[in-house]
């Protein structure tokens, strides 16, 4: 556990928000304030820093309840536009996962497969208000006699549609390179042979968990921007690992903390939730998340004041080490270096490309700033998710 003191309370910040007096800035604006006025002044001046991220986030999906049929069915198998949803939950509940691919998809039969449609696309189509075909099968019981059900429906016909992503918003991540002699198709994009290009996937200085590196203000109960709607943090995410190495500022130097998030899909927008086809890999979901960081003490002002120049990302070989499960870091770079378009490795100049959208992340942080300035208060985390010693 890390010890911290709350020097500016949630009550104080929220009463300022309610009276329209709160000072809210984005994580892209905060560094300038800290640079100009120092951490002490920045803490006094700024109440909330808004963050944002938008990118492919596996471990996403949605719980759907399609309402009781007449006669009733206790579904054992459910498909949405031919994409199977797990239905071993209850009679008419199912969970559509982002990476589930369509039935009869050729997969990587001819490598690299295109993976044109999957669970992520079903979620996008539902949010877009498009008509979806739902098909359910059952064995029939005395109370639920129906054995087969098929219906074309939209999200409005569903009783409930709750996006519930078990692991999102990775606190920092890898950058990827390919040292082999063959082009590889990965979830980190297309990596050309012999280190011809590198990719990375983080919003860097705008990324939610990088702005609260010890998760002091982010936990179950934190109200967030999720896919354009109000959502909340449900728990720490799966694979949450706070013990990842940290630098002198306390910032993790690789993938570490994660959160699970939840929100009403019916209020979301396809501007911030998109299905993704990753050539040679599969389908997934692009998720837009924004988290307000209350500046409860000077340290939070310090953390949110850090920039891409301060945050390090490990370079990993996705051609040889990663698939074999070898934890080998070629070296670290800063996100500022990654974002410049080139990194140097040995005497090689390697072009870099992002996979996570910085323009969208910025848009989300600004949108969240608008929300707060219009009275959206900061949620109080009800539990401390596992953290490390500061």
């Amino acid at each position, binding site marked *: 556990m890390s010890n911290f003191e709350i020097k500016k309370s949630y009550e104080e910040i929220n009463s300022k928000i309610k009276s329209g007096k709160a000072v809210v800035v984005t994580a892209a604006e905060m560094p300038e304030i800290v640079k100009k006025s120092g951490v002490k002044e920045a803490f006094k001046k700024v109440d909330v820093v808004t963050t944002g991220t938008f990118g492919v986030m596996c471990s996403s999906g949605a719980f759907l309840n399609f309402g009781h049929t007449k006669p009733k069915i206790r579904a054992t198998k459910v498909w949405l536009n031919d994409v199977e949803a797990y239905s071993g939950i209850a009679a008419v509940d199912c969970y559509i996962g982002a990476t589930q691919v369509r039935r009869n998809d050729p997969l990587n039969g001819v490598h690299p497969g295109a993976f044109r449609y999957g669970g992520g696309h079903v979620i996008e189509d539902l949010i877009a208000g498009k008509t979806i075909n739902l098909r359910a099968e059952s064995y029939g019981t005395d109370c639920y006699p129906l054995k087969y059900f098929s219906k074309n429906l939209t999200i409005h016909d569903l009783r409930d549609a709750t996006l519930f992503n078990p692991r999102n918003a990775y606190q920092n991540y890898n950058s990827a390179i390919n040292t082999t002699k063959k082009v590889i198709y990965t979830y980190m994009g297309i990596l050309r042979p012999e280190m011809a290009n590198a990719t990375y996937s983080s919003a860097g200085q705008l990324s939610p968990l990088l702005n609260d590196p010890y998760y002091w203000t982010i936990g179950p109960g934190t109200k967030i921007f999720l896919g354009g709607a109000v959502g909340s943090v449900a728990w720490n995410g799966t694979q949450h690992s706070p013990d990842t190495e940290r630098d002198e500022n306390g910032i993790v130097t690789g993938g570490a903390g994660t959160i699970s998030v939840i929100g009403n899909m019916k209020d979301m927008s396809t501007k911030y939730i998109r299905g993704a086809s990753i050539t040679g890999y599969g389908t997934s979901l692009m998720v837009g998340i924004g988290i307000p960081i209350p500046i409860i003490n000077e340290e939070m002002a310090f953390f949110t004041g850090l920039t891409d120049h301060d945050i390090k990302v490990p370079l990993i070989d996705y051609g040889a080490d990663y698939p074999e499960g070898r934890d080998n870091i070629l070296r670290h770079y800063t996100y500022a270096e990654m974002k410049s378009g080139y990194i140097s490795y040995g005497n090689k100049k390697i072009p870099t*490309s992002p996979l996570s959208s910085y323009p969208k992340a910025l848009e989300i942080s600004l949108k969240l700033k608008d929300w707060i300035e219009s009275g959206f208060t900061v949620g109080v985390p009800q539990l401390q998710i596992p953290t490390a010693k500061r």
Partner: protein
Amino acid sequence: MESLNVLLIFRKEIMYKPIIYRIARDFNIEFNVLEAKIFPKQEGRIILELKGTKAEIQDTLNYFETEGVEARKLSDQIRKDDNICVHCGACTAVCRVDALYIDRETMRVLFDSEKCVACGLCMKACPVNAISGAVIDMEA
């Protein structure tokens, strides 16, 4: 010396007629075959890089027209739909001619169609299907 990348479409009536060889002999064009495909009984497609003076290239395009060969500039082939694009940047990883590039100020993905050689790799890299266009393959 100018350079122009074109997609040539030979309808079935002319697909087995020798046409290309004359552009070197009669129009002094230095050409490079970037890709070629025959769709039996339908049409033949070839992507050529044409190098020559402006006038020589224009004469060549006129010649193609008189022979009934449809010539499409590659810069008009690939389109990026900005209503679909989320500016993630995945396409810039595979674009070897920097037609797709990132504006470092805004980190937005921009497309310079003049530089595009219609290799089609961006269409594979784009996770949201924002890039479309005819490459060597026939439109579905």
